[in-house]
């Protein structure tokens, strides 16, 4: 005896002919009768597969394990009286509740995985930087510089000789096999120096202009050479790649979120390079000591930069909040000076880094320029 009956839409999976059918619910099966035709078909409840539960106004979509090409569409209003009759096996994968449950487990695992990837990924990539052959490193450095620096190179012969002399002295403390390629480029307004993979080292002429002695320049040089000694540029490049790849994997398609991801990646990267800077200060100090050049030159130079900053902007970097410090690529000048000063042990008899005429020649290195 039929408990309930309702209209439904049926397709046999063989032809596109639509059938308006009436469905009768019995104890262990449902009976589908074609209207206007005498034939009918019985589906046991245990044979039924729910392909989609109703999402009003979309009906429920059912099939039978006997022939998975068949389709029976049941309107939402008839669904709920019927749903309770179906065994659990009728809902193969995508019932929402079980889905949510498994998702929760999956999500937990994923969070652990993501945290592990974020923590270990960049470090792994950093290690990978050791595997890159020197010739490739030189190429990469050249590419990086060619694309970012287009200032004329300073090429006065005596100046270059003085510069080479400084490099040679500082090189004594270097343990890695680095083919140093040190150049001064003409940019009087730029107070910066940078080191690129493969021994490329660029000093902006602003440094020479601002420096009061060869020791100060030697200090800057030692700091940058220390970066190369520790392979910082390559490491940071690889780290960057690692962070970017990790975050892209995570946020790939999410659109809006990918910007956040980039921002997060940047903070990550800056945090690292801040560690690098302090390390380069320390190693640079050792290089100066080894070359028997007064390391206080580096300290003096930083102090003067700080004064300049205070004068031009009205406040010193030391007035900035801790948050600012965390976000800036370079650590506080003040903090660096303190670190350096704490390293200074006893006053020694240092040699003069360059004699007066050599120092003058270095200052004038930009009197002749090449492209």
């Amino acid at each position: 005896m039929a408990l309930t009956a309702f209209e439904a839409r049926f397709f046999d999976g063989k032809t596109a002919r639509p059938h308006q059918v009436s469905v009768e619910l019995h104890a262990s099966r449902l009976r589908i009768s074609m209207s206007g035709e005498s034939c009918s078909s019985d589906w046991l409840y245990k044979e039924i597969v729910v392909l989609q539960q109703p999402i009003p106004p979309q009906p429920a979509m059912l099939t039978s394990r006997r022939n998975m090409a068949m389709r029976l569409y049941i309107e939402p209003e008839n669904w709920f009286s019927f749903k309770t009759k179906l065994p659990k096996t009728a809902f193969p994968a995508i019932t929402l509740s079980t889905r949510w449950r498994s998702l929760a487990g999956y999500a937990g695992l994923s969070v652990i995985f993501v945290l592990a990837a974020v923590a270990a990924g960049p470090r792994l990539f950093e290690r990978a930087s050791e595997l890159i052959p020197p010739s490739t490193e030189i190429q990469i450095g050249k590419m990086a510089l060619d694309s970012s620096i287009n200032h004329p190179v300073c090429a006065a012969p005596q100046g270059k000789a003085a510069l080479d002399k400084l490099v040679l002295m500082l090189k004594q403390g270097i343990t890695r096999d680095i083919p140093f390629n040190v150049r001064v480029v003409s940019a009087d307004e730029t107070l910066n120096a940078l080191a690129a993979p493969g021994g490329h080292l660029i000093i902006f002429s602003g440094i020479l202009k601002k420096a009061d002695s060869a020791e100060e320049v030697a200090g800057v040089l030692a700091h940058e050479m220390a970066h190369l000694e520790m392979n910082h540029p390559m490491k940071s490049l690889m780290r960057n790649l690692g962070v970017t790849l990790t975050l892209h994997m995570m946020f790939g398609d999410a659109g809006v979120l990918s910007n956040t991801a980039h921002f997060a990646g940047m903070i990550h990267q800056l945090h690292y390079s801040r560690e690098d800077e302090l390390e380069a200060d320390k190693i640079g100090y050792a290089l100066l000591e080894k070359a028997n050049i007064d390391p206080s030159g580096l300290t003096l130079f930083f102090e003067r930069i700080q004064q300049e900053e205070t004068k031009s902007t009205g406040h010193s970097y030391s007035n900035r909040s801790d948050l600012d410090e965390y976000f800036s690529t370079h650590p506080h000048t003040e903090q660096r000076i303190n670190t350096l000063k704490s390293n200074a042990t006893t006053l020694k008899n240092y040699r003069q880094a360059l004699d007066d005429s050599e120092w003058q020649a270095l200052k004038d290195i930009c009197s002749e320029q090449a492209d």
Partner: protein
Amino acid sequence: MSTIATDQVFMGRQVTEEAQPDEIRRHLTTHRIAYDGQTGQVYKIWLLNIVMNIFTLGIYSFWGKTRLRQYVAGAFKLNKDRFEYTGTGKELFVGFLKGMLVFFVLYLPFMVASFIAPDAVWPLVFLIPFFYVLPVALYSAWRYRISRIQWRGVRFELDGSVMKYAGIFLWRWLINIISLGILIPYSDIRIYQYIADNAYYGDIAFRFEGRGKNLMAIHLATYSIIIGLFIFVFYGLQLMAASFVTAQMAIGQQDLSFDEALVIFFSNASFFAALTCIIVPFILLPMIRLIYKTALIHEITNHLYAGEIGFKSTITTFALIKLKLGNFLILILTLGLGLPVIMQRNLRFFAQHTQVKGNLETSSIKQTASRKPADAEGLHAVMGLDSGFI
């Protein structure tokens, strides 16, 4: 843009059924397509996808995409009956892995070569296969999607060869360049023709009778207006540069601050003339192109047949402009959070403007055994060709 119009092939609902002799009525009956997808539901699926993608490093996206496709397909109704998407997330995921593999294998020779000879030009030769990758990826995606749609329990199919399609695609691309874009309608039609000629619904083959020459007049007209606008833009840019130089000189001569110079710059009459030259074409240009787009959609829809069933598009240029402009504004104003709304608008637009003509109550359409197991759209996903959405 035309993806929407051709992606979910003909769906709708019967609206007119007048008492006429059967033979005539069979040709006259027009079925409208209904789309009743709920924006709330779409948002629910979309947001779940985003959250799950974060937790699963993007792996969920294949299942999320499938869920969305299932919902959207089910929301299309043609003559009382809904469409069904039968693809699975697993298929997409496996397809993606395969695509990655293909991509890597194709990329490897170039990587090795450019490592051996970093400064040489010859390694670029190994990038040539990548010209094929785009059309191959496009066609296999078409094939996969079409073969996973069914209506009234009967599958759609897309046959044909990806390499043949790629050949046509690249050849037409070359022709477009050589003809300086003049022959674009022939290319558009030819490429569409290949897809339509290889499409089936059950055992019914699709047939396409559109012609490129029908579009030539409208193409040439819009094309020449666009070129005219480009010249306009070119002179506009020159004017703008001139007025900027004037403002800069003012800084030097009159000892003005930068702010004051900016005021001069913005109040300069020639600057505004230039502004018009820039802005007007940038709004006008796409709009004018939409005139052609409308004609193209009409041509490809109105000349498509499946057995005795025909199709009709009622899109107008004005409606298309309204749709695109609205979508653009929604995207900008919601910072991307309105994406589901845009999708809904596109789908509704398609349903509203596409009609199916003929007798759908035929019992003669039969399911066929799948012609070819269509691989999932792996390359398509690897290349990031989807909008990351449907």
